[in-house]
């Protein structure tokens, strides 16, 4: 059986497979083009951007756009805001979801299946749909233009519960039982014995949620009222509305917004792939 595999790989590709791969490869390269255009564009002068036929490569690197961006806009602050909001939200999501998922997977209590169904049903409701009442709550708590206003509503996601429950179910009951028989509290068992086993799940949730919050836009746009409170995405999008006629500078903004995640992705690619797959149906 084993030596079939290399033979299979060495074999000539079927025409269907070949054509498919050529198309897919072309598509992949085309996918890169917008980024190439964005990054080179951000290094052009404003007039260079408008040049048609296009300048495929900037004749001189015009770094001024980036200087303008970081001097004229609180771009660094935006990035820090994004990091803060994404990290805190994600930590809260992981914490709350893990607790709840553990309860749903391992503990017995009345109304468990109903509560779980209720949680899962909310997966169907994007919070944006009820943005009007949601926003009013934020106003009631006086949280507009605050980090908490951006963070708290995003913690209410059933996805983490859904994801982690599967992982907790994979942990043998014997581990929990032995811990309990040794007199450890349920919380100690959860933290010391069970949680370390489901690390991959926690990691996956962390990555997925981090990306989600990082790329969130509508909610953060509504909450951030002053320039200093904007996250990177909101700040970048606001550049589009500036009356600054330099389009290259706006492209520099978009590049800056794209880069952090791009770097994180390149470094942690394997975890991303794993996280996304684990995040779906545990098969």
């Amino acid at each position, binding site marked *: 059986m084993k030596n079939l595999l290399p033979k299979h790989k060495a074999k000539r590709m079927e025409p269907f497979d070949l054509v498919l791969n050529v198309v897919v490869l072309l598509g992949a390269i085309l996918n890169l083009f917008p980024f190439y255009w964005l990054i080179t564009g951000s290094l052009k002068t*404003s*007039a260079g951007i*408008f040049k048609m036929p296009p300048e495929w490569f900037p004749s001189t690197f015009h770094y001024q756009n980036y200087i303008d961006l970081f001097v004229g806009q609180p771009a660094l602050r935006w990035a820090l805001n994004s990091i803060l909001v994404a990290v805190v939200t994600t930590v809260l999501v992981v914490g709350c979801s893990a607790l709840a998922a553990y309860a749903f997977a391992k503990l017995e209590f009345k109304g468990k299946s109903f509560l779980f169904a209720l949680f899962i049903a909310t997966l169907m409701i994007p919070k944006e749909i009820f943005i009007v009442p949601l*926003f*009013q709550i934020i*106003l009631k708590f006086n949280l*507009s*233009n605050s980090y908490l206003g951006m963070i708290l509503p995003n913690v209410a996601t059933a996805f983490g519960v859904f994801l982690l429950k599967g992982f907790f179910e994979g942990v043998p009951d014997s581990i929990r039982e032995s811990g309990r028989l040794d007199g450890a509290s349920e919380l100690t068992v959860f933290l010391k014995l069970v949680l370390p086993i489901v690390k991959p799940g926690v990691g996956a949730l962390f990555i997925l949620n981090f990306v989600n919050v990082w790329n969130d836009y509508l909610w953060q746009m*509504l909450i951030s*009222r*002053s*320039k200093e409170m904007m996250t990177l995405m909101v700040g970048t999008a*606001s550049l589009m*509305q*500036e*009356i600054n*006629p*330099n*389009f290259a500078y706006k492209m520099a903004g978009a590049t800056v917004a794209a880069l952090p995640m791009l770097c994180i992705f390149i470094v942690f690619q394997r975890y991303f792939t794993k996280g996304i797959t684990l995040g779906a149906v545990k098969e």
Partner: protein
Amino acid sequence: MKKLTKLLALALPACMAFTACGQSAGSATTAPASTAATTETTTSAAATPTGEKMELTLWLTPSWKGVFSGDEPGADYDSFFIEAGKRYTENVNPNVTIKVEVIPGDTRDEKVSVAESTNTLPDLFYEGAFTMSSYYHNGSIVPLTDIVGAEDKTDIADGIWENCMVEDEIFVFPFAHMPGTLVYNADMLKAAGLEQYIAGEYEIATWTPDELKTILQTLHEKQPEVYPLSLFAMNNQGDTWNLTWLRMYGSKFFGPDGKLIVNDGAGVQALQYLIDLKDAGLTVPGPESLTSNDCNAMFQNKQVAVSFTNSTLFTNLQTDMNNGTLEKFDARLANIPGDPAPNSFTYVSGFMAMNTGNDARIAAAKDFIRYVCTDPALVLASKNTLPVRETVTKQVSGEMPYLQAYTDNAKFIYNFSNNMPGYKELRNVLFPELQAAFTGEKTAQQALDSYVEKGNAVIEEGRKVSVIYN
């Protein structure tokens, strides 16, 4: 008993804090008493006698850079307002500081509407009067009638005051105004052999619609790489130029009852004129997907020959060309053509005191407005756009070469918004119809019919919910 004390409080003219909060029901009572009283209370800092420390927030959308001139080092959109705040704190009321925030014009309505529902309105606003009238109608702006003195009334022209009033109450203290015109790249016209249409450097050219068409056609033939005219309808930004285009053949736009009538023959003819230009390739392509920002950027980058501008954008353009941010070219002004006469409009901008619900803050805000709008040194900054005060105009006419041209052009000025309730939403009804017309989905007549129908519904609805009419 309660009523009695309330009456007593209202009667005390020095207690500006109370008169200021007459946003809804109280407005009728405060009006007559105030005008007489203000001449005495004017520049004094009586507003915050308690000496309570407070920081007032001022919002503005980008207008001009620098305190008195865009050439100053570090000149930015908030420079003047920061300086004015500093002087107010130093010279008038040490307990009040002013915090300045610049907000983008595109998102102003979102920002304000959110601020209204969150009770986080700024204390002060500097903005064009017409864009803000909706907020006066819903009670978010307090009237300023009581801080306007008789000398202000005479120093500032009636036409300007008209732009700042709703039903006899002043809700904006006018500071500067910005006439809107077209701007053209005279170098391009020269290169295309159109010297005869170029007016003097400090003049505003007036072309008939046919002349403009000839200019654009010639430009198109001689310089095919340049788009002859900018045209935009992606959103409501810069729609005043579009409104003015629609009056090109003399449509009155609003009927005597304040309802829209722009679907008359003259209105349709005007829109058809624009559609024809677009179809003949004489405008930028795809105006339905372009914003005024896009067009302005293209003009500055020499991609468009004839575009739109106002006195501030024009000043900024000159500044950018002088300091090397932009490549230099010969930019000159022109009127939006009209038959028989062109139409011109001006944005009156000024200060507003917002209804924050806190009487002390409102009083302080009004006192600050009074100070900025009357201090002889500070009002000079209005030359960054155009001064509303005649005294200032006289002072600065020597250093402002365009002032004479704008003054001469004043005879073409019309009032474009009526400061009607629901104007904000009325603006959002127009651009989709223009998009439909520019993309050929609707004829000029259909688009304007639909605009009038929807627009009038908006106006009616606006009257129903306005706190001014109820």
